[in-house]
C-alpha cells in the first residue's frame, strides 16, 4: 500500500466537493474491493474519500417499486423478508455472494462496481494486462483462463465481471441514480457497464467524480417466480463459474414474459434478451428451456481452460428456468 490522503464525506455534496480531478481519487464504501486492491498495489489512489457517513442507506419498498440506497449493506438488503418473498432472485443473488462477514461490510454500489477477479489483473507482477496497464497485452489470453468470460469479451480482455447482485439488477430493468459535479441523473443499469472492446480499462459510463446514490426498479407480482442459481467450485464463499438470474411471468401455462441474466460467464452484467424472446408464448419444458439456453450461448467464444463454460452455462440456464417454472407463483 502507498500513502494516501483520507477524508470523510458527510453528504453527497461534500463527497463530490472533496473529489480532485487532478489526483487519483477513490470513494471508499465497505472497502472490501478497494482496500484489497490497494494492498495488492493494483490501484494507487492518492486520495480516498470515505462515503460511509453520507447516508444513502435506506430501503424503500412500495406496492410497485423498490429503491435501494447505494450504501445499503448487502446483508441488510438480503435480510428483507418482504423482498425475499416478492423478488427472491434479488435477495438470493446477495445471499449467495462472498461470505457473511464480507456482506456485513460490503455495500450495494460497491458490489456492482467491484473489479474483476482475473488473477493477472490482481497481481502486479504480471506485466501484460490491458485493464491494469492499457496497451500492455493480456496474459490471460494464452494463460490460465478457466474463470474467464465467454460472452462480451474482446481480443484485448477476457476478464469476467464478477458480481452476482448485478445480474438481478439487469434482469429487473433497474435504473441507477447518480450524482456528480454536473448534477444528478438516472440511467438504466444496463447502461452502467461497458464491454471491454479495445479499452478494457474503461469499465463504466460514470464520470470519475460521479457517485451512485441508489438503485430503483419496478416490482411486479409475477416476480415472485424468480430465482438466482449459482454454480461454483464449492458451496459457499466462492464466485460463480456460471449463474443465472431468471424471472418468469406465466399465463395459462405459456410464458408471457421472461427475464434471464447471466453471471460468471460474461465481461459485463449480461442480459440474454434473445433467449428471453424465444420463450415468449411457449410452454416451459425441457425442449423450450434447452432452446433458450442454446440461444443464450450461441455467440460464446471459449478459450483453452474455459471451454466448459458454454455447456455449463446452458445447463445452468435450463436448470434455472425449469426450477422457476416449478415454483409456486
Amino acid at each position, binding site marked *: *500500500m*502507498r*500513502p494516501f490522503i483520507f477524508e470523510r464525506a458527510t453528504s453527497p455534496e461534500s463527497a463530490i466537493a472533496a473529489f480532485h480531478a487532478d489526483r487519483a481519487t477513490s470513494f471508499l464504501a465497505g472497502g472490501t474491493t478497494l482496500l484489497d486492491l490497494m494492498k495488492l*498495489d493494483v490501484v494507487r489512489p492518492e486520495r480516498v474519500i470515505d462515503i460511509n457517513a453520507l447516508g444513502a442507506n435506506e430501503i424503500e419498498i412500495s406496492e410497485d417499486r423498490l429503491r435501494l440506497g447505494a450504501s445499503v449493506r448487502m446483508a441488510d438488503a438480503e435480510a428483507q423478508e418482504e423482498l425475499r418473498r416478492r423478488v427472491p432472485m434479488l435477495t438470493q443473488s446477495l445471499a449467495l455472494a462472498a461470505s457473511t462477514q464480507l456482506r456485513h461490510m460490503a455495500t450495494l454500489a460497491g458490489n456492482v462496481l467491484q473489479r474483476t*477477479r482475473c*488473477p493477472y489483473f490482481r*497481481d*502486479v*507482477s*504480471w*506485466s501484460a494486462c490491458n485493464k491494469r496497464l492499457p496497451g500492455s497485452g493480456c*496474459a490471460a489470453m*494464452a*494463460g*490460465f483462463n*478457466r474463470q474467464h468470460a465467454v460472452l462480451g469479451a474482446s481480443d484485448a480482455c477476457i476478464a469476467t465481471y464478477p458480481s452476482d447482485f448485478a445480474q438481478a439488477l439487469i434482469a429487473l430493468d433497474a435504473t441507477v441514480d447518480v450524482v456528480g459535479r454536473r448534477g444528478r441523473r438516472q440511467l438504466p443499469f444496463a447502461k452502467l457497464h461497458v464491454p471491454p472492446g479495445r479499452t478494457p480499462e474503461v469499465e463504466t459510463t460514470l464520470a470519475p467524480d460521479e457517485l451512485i446514490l441508489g438503485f430503483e426498479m419496478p416490482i411486479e407480482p409475477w416476480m415472485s417466480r424468480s430465482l438466482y442459481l449459482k*454454480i*461454483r*467450485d*464449492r*458451496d*459457499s*464463499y*466462492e464466485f460463480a*463459474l*456460471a449463474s443465472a438470474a431468471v424471472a418468469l411471468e406465466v399465463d395459462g401455462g405459456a410464458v408471457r414474459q421472461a427475464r434471464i441474466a447471466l453471471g460468471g460467464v460474461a465481461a459485463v452484467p449480461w442480459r440474454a434478451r434473445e433467449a428471453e424472446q424465444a420463450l415468449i408464448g411457449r410452454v416451459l419444458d425441457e425442449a423450450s428451456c434447452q432452446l433458450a439456453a442454446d440461444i443464450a450461448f450461441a455467440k460464446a467464444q471459449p478459450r483453452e481452460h474455459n*471451454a*466448459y463454460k458454454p*455447456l*455449463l452455462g446452458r*445447463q*445452468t440456464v*435450463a*436448470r434455472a428456468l425449469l426450477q422457476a417454472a416449478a415454483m409456486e407463483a
Partner: protein
Amino acid sequence: MAIIGPVQQKNMGPPHSRIDGRAKVTGAAPYASDFAVGRPAYAYFVTSSIARGRITGFDMAAAGQVPGLLDILTYETMRGAVKKPTFFAGGGYAGTTIRPLDGPEIFHDGQIVAVVLADSYESAREAAYKVKVTCQAEQPAATFGSAGATTEDAADAKGHEDPAVGDIAAGLAAASATVDADYATPTQHHNPIELFTTTCAWTGDKLTVYEPSQIVHGLKHGVAEQLGIPPDHVRIVSPFVGGAFGSKASVTPRTALAAIAARCLGRPVKLVLTREQGFSVATYRAETRHHLRLGADADGKFTALSHEAWEVTSRPDSYLVAGTDTTARLYACPNVFTKVHLVHVDRNTPGFMRSPPEVPYLFPLECAIDEVAEKLGLDPIELRRRNDTMKEPIGGLPYTSRSLMECFDQAAESFGWARRSAAPASMRDGDWLIGWGCASTCYPTALAPATARVILWKDGRVKVETAAHDLGTGAYTALAQVAAERLGVPVGQVTIALGDSDLPPSPVAGGSITTASVSSVIAKACDAIRAKLGVNDSALIDPGIRVAGFERLGVALVQEYAEFAPHGAKPEGIDKLYAGLSTLKGGAMLEDRIQYAFGAEFVEVRIHARTREIRVPRVHGAFAAGRIVNPKTAHSQLMGGLIWGVSSALHEATEMDLGTARYINDNFADYLVPVNADIEDVSVILVPERDTQVNPLGIKGLGELGNVGTNAAVANAVYHATGRRIRELPIRLEKLLA
C-alpha cells in the same frame, strides 16, 4: 452434522481437552511473531516475477525516497553472505540449496531478489513495491511435458531402491481382470493459517530466532550453517505453531536473511511473508504422474502390480517421496514392479506435505482396485479382504499389527454400505446423482530418537521439558497425559515446555512420529523417577507412595533426563538428534518387520445431473493406530484429515501459468479449500488395536493417517455416481460435463 464423539475404548487413554486450548482461544498463547523484541526493524521481500533467467539491474531511486527506509539488500552486496546449505532430504537442514541473494541467477518464480528494511512494515512494503528489477528472462520449464524438463531415474539420483518381486509380465498374463491406466495428482501448497514469520534478535554474537518450526534443533543447526556461526550461538523459540503440515519442517532461505539484516542494522528484525510469498519461499507438494497396472485372478487374488511414477522437483535439488515403498507392500501380490522418476523443472524445491508419499501414491492404487473389483463383479471391500495380508510381499516381513479389515467392517457398518446398489449411476435423489465409494488408508509407523527431562516435586507437580513441537495437533495435551499417568498425578499438575532449542532435543514433528517417540522418552524418564522413589514397574503410584518415597530420599524434587532410541535405530541416533537431525525408523524401513497404521474411508458424493457440481454430504472413516493416548485429539486429527482428503480430491490445486512457470492462485481467495458448507457429516471411528512391538507404549502415529486414500474414495464415489472414471485430480465439474 453427526459426529461420533470420541469415547474411551480398549487400549485408549481418556479423552482430554487441550490443556493449551484456553490460552489459544484467548490469544494468550504466543506465536513466533507475537514475541516483543525492542524496537524492531521490518523486512519485506521483493521476489522474482520470472522463473528462469538473470537479473540485469535494480532501480532503487523511487524506493530510496520512502520515509523510514533503512536499507535494501541484494546479491550485489550480499553475495556469499549466506553459506551453502545442506539439503534436508540429503541428511541436512535446508528445504532448498538455492542460496538467497547469492547471484543474479533466477531459478524459480517468487525467488527472493531483495530484502527491504524499514522502520515500519508499511514503509518496507511501500519501498518494496517501488523497487524495480530488470531481468533477462529465459524460457522456463513449468512441469511434466514442458520443453526443457529433464527426467532421471530416482534410483540414480537418490539411491532410491525400487521395491520389486516376482515376474510382472507373467503376473499380468495370469490375470483374469486387469487395469492399465494413467493417473495424475496436482501441485498443492500447505497454506497453514499462520504465515511464515521470522524475528531475529542478536545479543552480542548470540542469535535468538522466533520462528514457527517443526524442528527447532534442526532450524538451530541449519541457521548456524547458513550464517557460518557455531550452533550453540543460536536459539530457536517456537512454543506454538499455527499449522505447518510439513511446510515448517525444513530451513527456508528467509531465516538467514533476517538474521543478517538484524546484524547489519544492529537491531532486531521482524519478517512476515505474505500468503503469496509463502508459495515460493517455502516448499509444496509436487504434482505427480502414475502409470499403474494391476491384475487379479478370477478369485480376486492379485497376480501383478506395476506402479511407475514421475515426480516434479527443482533444477538443483532432488526431492523425492517415492510412495511405491508403501504401494508395493500394501496387499498380498506375488509379482510387483515399481519405478520412480524425478523430473527437474524451473520451480522452487518441493518438500514434505502431510502424508507426502501416501497421498499421491495411494490414489492410483486405490482407484485401480475399485476398477478391478468392478471387472470381477466383486465388492471392493471383498477384493481388499481377499488380498489382505499379515506379510508384506516384497521381503516377506511380518506386519506388527494390521487392522485394515476391522476398519473396513466398522466403517462400512456405520456408513450403511450394505444398502449400496453396485451399478454405476444407479442411485439418485431427484436431480442429484448419488455415489458411494471407499478406499484404504495407511501410514507408516515410524519413530525417531528423542530426549526429555522430567521433574517431579514432592507436592505432585510435574514439569516435562523436551524440544518437541505442537503444531496444533494436541501434543501438549497427549504428552502431559503420558507423564500424568506414569507419575500418578492429575493432568492439571503437569506443565510441558516444548518448542525451544534450549530444551533437550526431540525429533521433527513430521512423519506422525511425535506422540510415539516423545511419549516413549517421557515414559522412560518417568520410570527412572519411579525407580528412585522405589515404585516397581507395574505398580500404581499414588500421593501416599510418592510422599513416602520423597521422605525416604530426603529431597524436594526428583529430576531425570532420558534418551530413547526406537527399534532398529543406529547407535549414533542420539548424537544426530543433538545435531538437529532426526533419524526415522519404522514403516517399511526395518529389516525384521513392517509397521503401519491402517484405516478405511467411505465417501458419499452428490452430483447434480445437469450442472455437475460435486458435493460431499458424508465421509466416514475408521482407523486403528495402536494405543490411542487421547481419543479426543486423535479424533480431531482424523476428522481434519478426512476433510483434507476431500479437499485434495475436489478443491486443492495450485494452478500454474505454463508458459512462464508461475503460480496463479497463490492466495486464499483462489486456492480453494472446503468451507463449512461443503462438509456435513464427518464420522471418525477409532478401532481398538493393541501392538506390543512398535514401541513399549504400543503407540502408532495417526496425524497423517486420515487424509490418505480419501482422494481415491471420492474418485470411486464419483464413478459410482456417474459411470465416469476421473483419474486426474482435482475432480472439478468440467470433467463431468458433456
